[in-house]
C-alpha cells in the first residue's frame, strides 16, 4: 500500500525508471507512466533556444539545464524528435582517431557513453563489443599502426593485432581464410562498439524534459530576428520566439542556417547510406570496418535483433533527397560479401540515407556564428552519433559561460581562414573525399 502512495516524482512529472517503479506501475494500474517529452507549450521567451531535436540539440539542452541551471530552455524541431541522422546512423561508437584534437574529444565522448544509461536513467544499450579496423593491404596496416600509436601516446587503449591474435579475438571472421585480398591484421578498440541510436535521442529528450526543457515538435524556424548587435529571437511557423541565445544543431540543413544569417559556411550536404539485412542468428560479435580494394569503405555490425547493419562511403555529390544511390548500396554489399562469403544468401531488408553536414576538412565546428549570442554545432560528417555526449556537454559550456572548453577550442569556425585545419585523412578541401 505505502509503496505506491509514496510515488516519487522525478522533476516535472517524469517517472524515474527503477525496479521499485516497475512494481509501483504494476500496482497502480494504467496511467502510471507519462509521456516522455510531449505536451509542452511553446512560450514567448527563453534563455536559450536550441534549433533541432536531434542528438546534439537534445544533449546540448540537457546539459544547459542540468549542469548550468538554465531554467528556460527550448528545443524547436521541424519534424519529430530523432527524425534525422540520430535515427539513421549505423550506431557505432569509437574513439580511434589520428589527430590529438579529434581523439581526445572522441575519447571524452566514448567515456560518457559508458555511463550514459545511468546519467540519463534510460537504457541506451551501450555494447562494448569492440571495433575492428581491418587491414587488407600493407599500406592499410601501416596506416592503422600509425593511428594506433598516436592513440597510445594519448593514453587511449587500442591494440594492433596480427592474424593470429585476430583469429583468437574474432574467430567468425576466419582471418586465415584464402581471400583475393587477405586480412593482414587489425586495429582493435575493445571499448568501442554500438549504442542503440533511437534510445540516445529518446533518453536525452526525456532527461531534458525532466530538467524543465520544453521540446516543441512541428515547429520550424524560418528566420532569425536581429537588432544589429545580436540576435533577439527566432521566427517560427508558430510565431516569434524571443531568445537570449540561439544554438543551431541542424546537421544536414546547416547550409540553410548560413543562408538565414548571411554567412557562407565551409559545409556541403552529402548523403550517406546505411542498410540492414533480415534478422539472423548471431554470426558477428564485433564491429568490422575496412576499405575493400574493389568496392570502397564498408562497416558491418549485427544488431541485437539480428540484422546485419552495413554502411559505406558517401554518395559522392551534394543532395537533400535522402534517397541513396543504387550503385553505392551495391558496392557496400559486394564489399561485405567479399569479406564474409557466408552472408551472401542473406537478403537486405531496408535501406535508407541521411543528409550529412560535410566540412572542408572532415572535422566539426562548435563556435559562434556571426553574432555573439548565436552558436553553431555542426559539421559532424560521419562522426555525429559517436560524439553526442561530448558535444552536448562542451557546447552547453560554450553557450552558458561564453568561453569554449579546451576540448573544443580547435573546432572553431575561423580555422579555415587561419589554416589550422583538422584534416584527419589529409584529403584537402574536398568534403566528398573526407
Amino acid at each position, binding site marked *: 500500500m505505502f509503496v505506491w502512495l509514496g510515488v516519487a516524482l522525478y522533476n516535472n512529472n517524469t517517472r524515474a525508471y527503477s525496479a521499485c517503479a516497475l512494481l509501483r506501475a504494476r500496482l497502480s494500474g494504467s496511467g502510471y507512466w507519462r509521456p516522455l517529452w510531449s505536451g509542452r507549450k511553446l512560450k514567448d521567451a527563453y534563455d536559450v533556444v536550441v534549433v533541432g531535436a536531434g542528438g546534439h540539440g537534445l544533449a546540448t539542452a540537457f546539459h544547459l539545464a542540468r549542469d548550468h541551471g538554465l531554467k528556460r530552455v527550448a528545443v524547436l524541431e521541424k519534424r519529430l524528435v530523432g527524425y534525422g541522422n540520430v535515427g539513421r546512423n549505423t550506431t557505432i561508437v569509437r574513439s580511434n582517431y589520428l589527430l590529438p584534437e579529434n581523439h581526445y574529444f572522441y575519447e571524452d565522448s566514448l567515456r560518457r557513453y559508458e555511463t550514459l544509461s545511468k546519467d540519463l536513467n534510460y537504457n541506451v544499450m551501450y555494447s562494448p563489443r569492440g571495433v575492428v579496423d581491418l587491414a587488407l593491404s600493407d599500406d592499410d596496416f601501416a596506416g592503422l599502426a600509425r593511428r594506433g600509436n598516436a592513440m597510445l601516446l594519448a593514453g587511449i587503449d587500442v591494440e594492433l593485432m596480427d592474424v593470429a591474435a585476430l583469429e583468437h579475438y574474432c574467430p567468425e571472421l576466419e582471418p586465415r581464410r584464402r581471400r583475393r585480398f587477405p586480412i593482414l591484421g587489425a586495429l582493435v578498440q575493445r571499448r568501442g562498439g554500438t549504442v542503440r541510436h533511437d534510445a540516445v535521442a529518446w533518453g536525452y529528450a526525456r532527461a531534458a524534459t525532466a530538467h524543465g526543457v520544453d521540446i516543441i515538435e512541428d515547429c520550424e524556424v524560418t528566420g532569425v530576428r536581429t537588432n544589429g548587435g545580436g540576435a533577439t529571437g527566432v521566427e517560427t511557423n508558430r510565431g516569434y520566439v524571443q531568445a537570449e541565445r540561439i544554438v543551431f544543431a541542424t546537421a544536414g540543413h546547416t547550409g540553410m542556417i548560413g543562408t538565414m544569417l548571411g554567412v557562407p559556411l565551409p559545409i*556541403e*550536404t552529402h548523403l550517406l547510406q546505411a542498410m540492414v539485412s533480415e534478422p539472423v542468428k548471431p554470426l558477428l560479435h564485433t564491429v568490422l570496418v575496412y576499405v575493400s580494394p574493389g568496392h570502397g569503405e564498408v562497416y558491418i555490425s549485427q544488431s541485437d535483433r539480428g540484422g546485419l547493419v552495413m554502411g559505406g562511403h558517401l554518395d559522392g555529390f*551534394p543532395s*537533400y*533527397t535522402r534517397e541513396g*544511390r543504387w550503385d553505392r548500396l551495391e558496392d557496400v554489399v559486394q564489399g561485405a560479401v567479399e569479406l564474409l562469403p557466408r552472408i551472401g544468401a542473406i537478403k537486405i531488408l531496408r535501406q535508407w540515407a541521411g543528409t550529412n553536414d560535410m566540412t572542408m576538412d572532415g572535422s566539426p565546428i562548435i563556435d559562434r556564428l556571426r553574432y555573439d549570442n548565436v552558436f553553431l554545432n555542426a559539421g559532424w560528417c560521419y562522426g555525429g552519433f559517436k560524439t553526442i555526449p561530448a558535444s552536448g556537454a562542451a557546447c552547453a559550456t560554450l553557450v552558458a559561460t561564453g568561453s569554449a572548453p579546451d576540448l573544443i577550442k580547435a573546432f572553431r569556425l575561423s580555422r579555415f*581562414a587561419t589554416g589550422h585545419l583538422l584534416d584527419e585523412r589529409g584529403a584537402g578541401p574536398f568534403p*566528398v573525399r573526407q
Partner: protein
Amino acid sequence: MTRLICPFCGPRELREFEFHKTLPAAPGSAFSRTYERVDRHEHSVEHWQHVEGCRGWLLVHRNPTTGEVLETRLLGGAAAGGAP
C-alpha cells in the same frame, strides 16, 4: 537520379561520372572559392567528369532537393538536354 546524359556518349549510368565541385554564384576570392559554400536547394551548378567514359568535363545544372537534372552540357560546349 540514376543517369546523366553525356553530350558525347548519351545517357549513361551515374556510376560512370564523378562529381568534382559546386560552382559559386558570384566570383570571389580564392579562399571563398575553396572553402565557402552558399546553400542552393533549388538549383546547383556543378562540374562533373565522365571518368569511366569519354573523360569529358561537364557542366551540370541540378536540383539537389528533388534530385532532378535540369541540364547537362560539355564545359564550353553545347547542351545535351535535361533529365534522361
